[in-house]
């Protein structure tokens, strides 16, 4: 009797459906949990232990070192803020990701507005606008490095020297300050298409009658932009800002390939890489990565609290 009840519960339609669902999700869940969520937790553990190349094969018995990995990161000269000429990795990361994200969203907005109205060749232009985003990072980083070459044969040096703007060739990516600025510009150049696509999709969903009503009221283009377009875009702009901020904050390849993290562009991901795979001090690397994650989470919480709430209210 009991057994029959159990089997019938086991065989009900919802139960069968749930079993099928888990069966279908199992491979994906296994890969994502095994290779992302477990490592993420494991890296917290590593950050409190002394893990190096010597004990990599026996990592689970690595000696615990308490907070010393963290204090060593905080005391590292590459990490600490030492005045406006030497920001240190933590402050550089914040400056870099915020300014790059703001610039990316701004340029993406301009590009989306450009492409929003129909004109001949719009499809092709839109496709071309996406090139920087889809091309391999290694290719575009090296092309830009070569355009910014410090020798007089570099394209930018040649153009600026011909136009008389500079007399001697500049080492753009090897000058403090300038290098950080250029890395920020590079981010905007490469990632504005992402912002553009999302803004464009939202722009095309705006109800046209709003603009028609504004026309009847005699609004000019700027007034329409401020009163209709921007409010309609507010939410998508906020979402793009958050996503791009997270991704830029975590970004390793761009800066590593452009400057190698030198000349005032050392951000936390590059520092993490250097601790782990140059010095092979995985514990300290993991500690640096955890600090990176903590800063990111703090910013996100502030952002969600302040910005997203304002969006809701309006």
């Amino acid at each position: 009797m009991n057994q029959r009840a159990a089997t019938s519960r086991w065989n009900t339609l919802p139960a069968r459906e749930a079993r099928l669902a888990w069966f279908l999700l199992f491979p994906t869940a296994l890969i994502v949990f095994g290779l992302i969520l477990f490592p993420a937790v494991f890296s917290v553990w590593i950050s409190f232990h002394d893990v190096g190349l010597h004990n990599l094969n026996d990592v689970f018995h690595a000696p615990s070192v308490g907070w010393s990995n963290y204090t060593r990161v905080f005391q590292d000269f590459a990490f600490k803020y030492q005045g406006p000429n030497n920001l240190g990795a933590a402050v550089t990361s914040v400056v870099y990701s915020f300014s790059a994200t703001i610039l990316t969203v701004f340029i993406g907005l301009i590009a989306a507005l450009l492409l929003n109205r129909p004109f001949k060749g719009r499809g092709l232009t839109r496709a071309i606008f996406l090139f920087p985003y889809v091309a391999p990072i290694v290719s575009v980083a090296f092309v830009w490095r070569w355009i910014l070459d410090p020798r007089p044969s570099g394209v930018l040096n040649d153009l600026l020297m011909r136009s008389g703007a500079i007399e001697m060739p500049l080492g753009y990516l090897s000058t403090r300050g300038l290098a950080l600025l250029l890395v920020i510009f590079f981010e905007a150049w490469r990632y504005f298409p992402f912002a553009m696509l999302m803004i464009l999709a939202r722009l095309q969903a705006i109800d046209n009658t709003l603009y028609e009503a504004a026309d009847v009221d005699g609004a000019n283009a700027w007034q329409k932009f401020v009163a209709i377009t921007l409010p309609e875009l507010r939410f998508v702009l906020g979402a793009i800002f958050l996503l791009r901020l997270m991704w830029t904050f975590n970004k390793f390849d761009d800066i590593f390939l452009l400057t190698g993290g030198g000349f005032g562009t050392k951000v936390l991901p590059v520092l993490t890489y250097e601790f782990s795979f140059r010095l092979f001090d995985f514990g300290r690397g993991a500690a640096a990565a955890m600090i990176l994650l903590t800063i990111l989470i703090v910013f996100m919480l502030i952002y969600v609290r302040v910005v997203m709430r304002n969006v809701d209210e309006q």
Partner: protein
Amino acid sequence: MMETRRMNLIQHMARRFSLRQIVFFLLLAFFLTSILFPFYWMVSSSFKTQVEIGGRQPVYIPSALRLDAYRELFDPSHPSFQNFSVNILNSLKVSIPTALIAVVLSVLGAYAIARLKFKGKNVLLNGVLMVYLLPGVLLIIPLFSMLANIGDRLGFNVQDNLGVLIVTYLAQTLPVAMYMLTNYFRTIPDEIEQAALIDGCSRLGVIWRVTLPLAIPALVSVFIYTFMIAWNEFLYALVFLNSRDLFTMPIKVNTIFNDPSPRPHVVMAASTIMTIPVVVLFLALEKYLEEGLTAGGVKG
């Protein structure tokens, strides 16, 4: 001479177009040049000679389409032969399996999330989206030591193992791929599937015969998306590959770039080979996607 012509052009434009149109064209021209010039520079430099590359001034248009750089990449008789075809092959060996497996697994997962009711669905979805937050550099340390341990026990190498790369790329791309497909499946009306189920089709039969044919545009997008991630990926390949024979293209290009004797034209030639397939693939996808969006699913 130049000046007067430019003035005339501006006057001419001012007469024909409104200020708004002029601003529009100037902005468009600015965007197009700043996007296209680097790509032009990459392709054109790949056809330059060592002399043109090393001169005091940049050569904007190569004197002829010289294949010096490509010869270094592919010609075994060249003194600094790079054997780049092996690297192309390695990139394909990683990207194609990654993309194929990602499509299959994300179809199954996305179907479950979009169509089936079960407990823990929201927890799962949110957990999967958390992946967005985690930096690649954070994951690579535990992954490296974890896989080294498992590898020791099961007898495979973490380093110089393309299979390990495929699995890590899958982990990175599956969440987004599943998300993309779930959204697409939700746009396909449930009624069609219900009808097939009533007609006696099994669930897997429904997925295979009804849902998948309707979702082809989304499947293509997922394939291209994962293919491009695997093709372009740099950090994991840099850490996991040591042997030159197993380098994927990005790592090889990085190696050539960091060679003590700089040969930018070779770097640009290799970059061109690496870039053209993704850009072409992407241009093809653009059309496909728009077609898929307009024709997607059944109306009514």
